[in-house]
């Protein structure tokens, strides 16, 4: 770069996304702590490793094809015309098809002195991928095989969420154009899809042994270590700051983007290039967190596990429109989402005998779904994206935000890209006998041999020191 101002803007943007990646790492730390805290002693180490190993599995596949899917399929299966032209530099074609820039053999998929942004964008989206897979991980603890979970993690983390981001986030996404879909901080794009996927897997996987009595009454298998759960959820809250920031573009000149001749307007934008401020979304984040905590404390009668989870559910529910809501709107929406998610969790548990060990389907799936629907009403009539404000590339216009579009969008996220693929893949794995650990192992504990070996080590060391 030879222009100082441009260099500052680009390197600031590079550093900004890099910081979001570091912050989002805490989400995964939190999920690991949370899951181990929620599992029973005899399953701790396998539970930890299952969640940890999704990091390399999703990362490798995100490099090979996940990132490419995001750039390759925004128009869906022929649902909307593409606005991409060669002038956008997102050229269809190349050795790997779709968008050649995200082809893993492309020169930009490595250190490249002509490009400062591909790597940090790739990494920010990858951290979203880990989150999606980690949401599923918590729901299935103590009875899924590591192999099956690895396959499922790759499916949600590097395939299905990437498709939904292409459809609902990408500037060429058909859901933006046709439905007016708006999901600024991923109520649906991450949370509803991951919750739906987890539900699809749980239907096939079945409950933990002893979860339901012979008459079908659910029993509570409470967290083994509430303190680990607490710290884990606090870390997830903390990582969510990075998540929110990563969904923004930190500095962008909207004048040319909106076709306003001669106008320069530098601002932060959301992922759809409509203006917002980091300052404003910080208020909304905290108010929706507070709404979730307030409602969760009341509805769960002070139960810490649900109160903490409700804080998260509050944020998730308000996330679709937190770029535009008033902070008090964000708080109330967070409260509504928590009440619905909590009630639905127990209704589904009793009615369908679904054992969601950490309430992931409720906190992420139901709260995300409800958040999308509410957004359609509260933001009805707003431009869904910056591409509908002026003319973009081919002059196409985009639908505005509306209740029906958001509802259909929620169905696409939760059911079509979440629940159905999760169910089908779990069915296939189950048919191969690879989904669930043997009953005897579940009773004995996945860590039995590790613990036995550690006990023998302890005895040996003890006898040697006599």
């Amino acid at each position, binding site marked *: 770069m*030879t222009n100082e101002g441009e260099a500052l803007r680009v390197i600031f943007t590079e550093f900004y996304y890099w910081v979001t990646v570091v912050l989002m790492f805490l989400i995964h730390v939190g999920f690991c702590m949370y899951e181990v805290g929620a599992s029973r*002693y*005899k399953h701790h180490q396998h539970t930890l490793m299952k969640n940890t190993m999704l990091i390399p*599995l999703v990362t*490798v*596949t995100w*490099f*090979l094809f996940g990132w490419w899917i995001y750039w390759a399929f925004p128009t869906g299966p022929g649902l909307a015309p593409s606005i991409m032209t060669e002038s956008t530099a997102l050229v269809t074609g190349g050795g790997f098809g779709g968008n050649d820039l995200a082809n*893993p*053999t*492309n*020169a930009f998929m*490595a*250190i*490249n*002195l*002509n*490009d400062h942004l591909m790597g940090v964008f790739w990494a920010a989206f990858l951290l979203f991928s880990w989150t999606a897979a980690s949401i599923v991980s918590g729901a299935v603890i103590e009875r899924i*095989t*590591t*192999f099956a979970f*690895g396959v499922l993690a790759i499916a949600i983390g590097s395939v299905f969420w990437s498709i939904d981001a292409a459809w609902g986030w990408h500037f060429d996404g058909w859901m933006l154009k046709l439905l007016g879909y708006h999901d600024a901080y991923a109520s649906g794009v991450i949370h509803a899809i991951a919750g739906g996927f987890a539900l699809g897997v749980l239907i096939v996987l079945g409950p933990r042994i002893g979860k339901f009595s012979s008459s079908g009454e659910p029993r509570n298998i409470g967290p083994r270590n509430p303190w680990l759960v607490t710290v884990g959820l606090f870390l997830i809250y903390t990582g969510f700051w990075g998540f929110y920031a990563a969904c923004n573009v930190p500095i962008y000149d909207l004048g040319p983007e909106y076709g306003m001749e001669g106008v320069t307007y530098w601002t932060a934008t959301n992922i759809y290039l409509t203006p917002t401020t980091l300052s404003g979304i910080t208020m909304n984040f905290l108010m929706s967190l507070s709404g979730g905590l307030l409602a969760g404390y009341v509805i769960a009668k002070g139960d810490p596990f649900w109160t903490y989870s409700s804080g998260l559910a509050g944020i998730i529910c308000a996330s679709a429109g937190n770029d535009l809501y008033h902070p008090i709107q964000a708080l109330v929406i967070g409260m509504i989402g928590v009440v619905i998610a909590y009630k639905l969790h127990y209704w589904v548990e009793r009615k369908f005998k679904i054992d969601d060990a950490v309430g992931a389907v409720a906190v992420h799936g139901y709260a995300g779904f409800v958040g999308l629907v509410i957004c359609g009403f509260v933001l009805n009539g707003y431009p869904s994206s910056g591409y509908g404000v002026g003319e973009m590339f081919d002059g196409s216009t985009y639908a505005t935000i509306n209740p029906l579009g958001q509802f259909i969008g929620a169905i696409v996220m939760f059911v079509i890209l979440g629940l159905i693929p999760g169910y089908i893949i779990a069915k296939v794995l189950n048919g191969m006998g*690879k989904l669930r*650990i*043997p*009953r*005897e*192992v579940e*009773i*004995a*504990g996945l*860590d*039995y*041999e590790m*613990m*036995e070996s*550690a*006990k023998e*080590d*302890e005895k040996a*060391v003890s006898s040697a020191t006599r």
Partner: protein
Amino acid sequence: MATVTDWITHLTTDTNADKDGIQVGGSIYPGAGSSELLLVLLLIAIWIGWHVITNRSENNELSNLSRKRHGANDHKSNITDW
């Protein structure tokens, strides 16, 4: 294999300086322009190999443990105190 042997030459690599200004040679990793496909194939092999190996070891571990038929509380005698 070395893509860069002299940074000054590399950073001023330029075929059209009058028109475009000084251009920076982009890729700097070893084997740039010739090794990418092989590296991707290597990664695919590592990825698939990992699944095959861990699947086999998990199968063995689960079948060994299930044969022993431990009770639900047997693990408690293995809790260490150190």
